[in-house]
């Protein structure tokens, strides 16, 4: 038993518990944020030290320690660090439970890290629940009616999604008799074509898995919770949900569908097609629904549904040719990284602005370029990245993920996707327009704290680096993607 391979997770769990305990003794609650950040940095340090090693399995083949998992662990740790930096001002307003807030963010990140590593159905379910339950609480943290409603909605729909997921897992287990992904794959590949294709339980199981995971990544038609929850949740948590939770969902989908259902080819072609259709519907619906939004958090909620659609182009690519294709998988990984920096950056700017304005209405951003020039420039850059205009990261991500689609005969889907980007330009630019062209409501400057400025600068730096010199991260994503096996 190689416990040292589990050190990043263990250290993060230890820090999460430490934060809760220290909350009892520490008067200056700001220290808790610092301790949480230290915990994330320590865990990231351990994770980086493992990069490049040969893939290993621990806990009786329940968890894999490979570059795929490590790539995602680094991504989640980075996301959680930015979220905590962005939370400090926000949380300082709470009278109580500040320690719990930071601890839950850490635990949720821990759950995501486990999700990226699990290779066994039961462990997947447990990791998923660890993430979700922490997030249910965090969404309701404000305790005002909107936040409570959001939390309840998220909890109820999340529970249903979990049930659907479990049902799907049960069916897959019933057909194959295994819970470990590699073993499931072996059983399915050993079955004759007729035995699999005539087996409705297997097909139904896979469809239910798509539905269960689809909830996590906000794929249409499992997206109903998104706008309400995004609007009601504390804004840093909305940011966390929109990038962390989504990335974890994609990590697990890639792992499950590629490892367990990658072969035989007719099977992957079929689930690839499901994802292709979900992608087309998701981005179109998300973009069209975002057009009339007046609340920026709701708008970004619909935009995240659309972005999930672009990401699913990568999943469809994987399904279209699981044996030949690395580009689809690495495309998803790279897209997630660049989406994470851009979306987090946008949310951090929104947090800073709404701290002052106490409003999330787009019209209140009027003339922001005069009141807070750097915030407005940073938010514009992040929105431009979300449209996919160079030199921002979003462009490279789209180029990369769509190139996989074109390579594998999904040009129709790519054309739908690029036309969707044009639609999306309209509502993203509307925010930019209001900030640059509108008259400011007052001359008063909008201040931002040091922590927010650091977080925002890091995100914007990420957006530019991934957009201008993406080669290094692309190589990492490729190395990670190659690690997935049947």
């Amino acid at each position, binding site marked *: 038993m190689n416990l040292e391979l589990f050190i990043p997770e263990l250290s993060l769990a230890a820090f999460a518990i430490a934060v809760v305990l220290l909350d009892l003794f520490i008067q200056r609650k700001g220290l808790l944020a610092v301790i949480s950040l230290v915990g994330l940095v320590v865990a990231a340090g351990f994770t980086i030290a493992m990069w490049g090693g040969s893939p290993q399995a621990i806990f009786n083949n329940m968890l894999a320690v490979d570059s795929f998992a490590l790539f995602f662990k680094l991504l989640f740790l980075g996301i959680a660090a930015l979220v905590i930096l962005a939370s400090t001002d926000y949380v300082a307003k709470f009278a109580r439970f500040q320690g719990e807030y930071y601890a839950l963010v850490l635990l949720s990140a821990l759950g995501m890290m486990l999700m990226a590593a699990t290779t066994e159905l039961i462990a997947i379910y447990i990791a998923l629940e660890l993430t979700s339950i922490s997030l249910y609480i965090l969404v309701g943290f404000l305790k005002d009616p909107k936040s409570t409603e959001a939390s309840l909605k998220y909890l109820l729909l999340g529970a249903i999604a979990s049930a659907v997921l479990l049902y799907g897992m049960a069916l897959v287990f019933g057909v194959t008799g295994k819970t470990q992904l590699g073993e499931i794959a072996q059983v399915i590949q050993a079955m004759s074509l007729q035995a699999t294709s005539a087996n409705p339980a297997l097909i139904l199981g896979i469809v239910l898995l798509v539905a269960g995971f689809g909830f996590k990544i906000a794929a249409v038609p499992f997206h109903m919770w998104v706008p309400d929850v995004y609007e009601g949740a504390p804004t840093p948590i909305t940011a966390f949900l929109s990038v962390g939770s989504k990335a974890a969902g994609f990590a697990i989908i890639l792992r499950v569908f590629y490892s367990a259902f990658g072969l035989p080819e007719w099977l992957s072609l079929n689930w690839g097609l499901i994802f292709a259709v979900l992608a087309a519907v998701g981005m179109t619906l998300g973009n069209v629904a975002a057009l009339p939004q007046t609340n920026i958090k709701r708008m970004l909620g619909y935009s995240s549904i659309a972005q999930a659609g672009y990401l699913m182009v990568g999943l469809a690519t994987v399904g279209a040719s699981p044996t030949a294709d690395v580009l689809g998988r690495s495309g998803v990984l790279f897209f997630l990284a660049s989406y994470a920096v851009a979306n987090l950056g946008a949310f951090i700017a929104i947090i800073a602005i709404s701290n002052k304005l106490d409003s999330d209405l787009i019209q209140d951003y009027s003339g922001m370029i005069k009141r807070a020039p750097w915030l407005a420039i940073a938010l514009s850059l992040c929105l431009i990245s979300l449209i996919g205009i160079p*030199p921002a990261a979003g462009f490279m991500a789209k180029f990369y993920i769509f190139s996989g689609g074109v390579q594998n005969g999904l040009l129709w889907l790519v054309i739908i996707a690029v036309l969707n980007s044009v639609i999306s330009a309209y509502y993203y630019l509307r925010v930019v327009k209001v900030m640059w062209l509108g008259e400011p409501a007052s001359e008063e400057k909008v201040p931002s704290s040091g922590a927010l400025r650091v977080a925002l600068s890091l995100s914007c730096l990420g957006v530019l680096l991934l957009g201008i010199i993406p080669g290094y991260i692309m190589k990492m994503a490729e190395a990670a993607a190659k690690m997935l096996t049947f």
Partner: protein
Amino acid sequence: MSFPYLTIIIFLPVAGAILIALLKNSHPRLIRYLAAIFTFVPLALAVTLFCNFDKSLAAAGLIQFEEKLLWIAPLNAFYHLGVDGLSLPLVILTAFLGFMVVLISWKIDLRVREYFVWLLLLETSILGVFCSLDLLLFFIFWEIEVIPMYFLISIWGSGRKEYSAIKYVVYTLFGSALMLAGILSLYFTTGSLSMVELAQSELGAFTAVIPVAAIFFLLLAGFAVKLPVVPLHTWLPDAHTDAPTAGSVMLAGALIKMGGYGMIRVCVSIFPQVATNYAPLLVTLAVISVLYGAAITLRQTDLKRLIAYSSVSHMGFVLLGIFALGQVSLTGAALQMVSHGLITGLLFAMAGLTMHNVGERDLSKLGGLARQIPIIAVIFSIAGLGGLGLPTTSGFAAEFLIFVGSFSSTAVSGIQVYTILAVIGVVLAAGYILWMLQRAFYGPVLEQYNGAKDADTLERVYMFAFVALIMLVGIYPAILTDIIKLGISPITGLLGG
């Protein structure tokens, strides 16, 4: 590696933009001088390139001042810059206009800092398009241009500026979305993003992911929106009319040339066979653009809108020259792009100046201005005469080459008929330009414009620069055609003509 001329030319304006953005002291005067310096140096360097360019016949098809670095390994994308006979004149044109628009914008006093930042970024992106030899790099520069132009139109424009700005963005993104799909298809058909390699390889040898003709049209869509080709032109009159003067000069002078350049560099060079097959269709569109554009120009009463529509017609000549696919016609098309950039740039500058000094741009309310603002009237007339193709102006040389080249081209059957139809466009041009000049500058003097100021020293300087270049190219076109030929001859070699 030799001195990286092109990198410096392309990125100096950005450096200037960053400097201006970070400046503590935001005195407008300082910002103007900085902008002038950071656009003048690229112009000087571009002229140096022109002088050092190998103009011997042996250099035909050679890429000069090449820079090549591996940029994104997983995508096989290179930071690959270079100029040949086709792109060099356009680089010089852009650098020239980039410097001129700073002078033209000298009197801007609204949000001066931001204004010059966007103007400089715009110049970089256009220069980048003309210098890139890697399709991904090309596309990135192509896309970056959208953002500065959006802000220039929507903040410093006039009329329905926000509507025009977003219309411009949506049209451009729509075209470039299809272009992106085309680039990706081309990349996976051949495994290369290098424009040089692609032009030399035989596409038939690869198994294409989709029919080669479909890739051709996906790419063409992006260029056709930009050029523009009727019926994709409706963004142009709105954007040109509502943009600030400098924005109109850049749009009409340099930006829409990206469309024509892309058609020659990508569509014709990489897909010679498809271009030949579909030439009749595209030449038909060219004739429609020329005649429809001219007809609609005739009924404009707004000074800027009139000039804008005339661009649609004049770009139709470029399209005709390109898809007549002859050595002479392609040379004419490339020359027409430069010539139109100078002439229409000057026309928009003069229209802006008239508007600024007189305060009116509705032709039905203008008249007799030749008495009150004689210098502007004379220069406006010279530019107008260039626009209708009077000999000794560059407009004549370019259009003459296009018509002669098209008429004698053997690549498209029945091209003579198309050419004759297109020539009617010149007659119509004479109509709308002379009518415009007459309505604005001649006829009875109107008293309310008595106090109007004529051009001041700075304005006379840039007017003179424009006129000198228009005359130079008109009287001695070989100064450019000798270079352009070097870029065109390998392409016509591919066409087998």
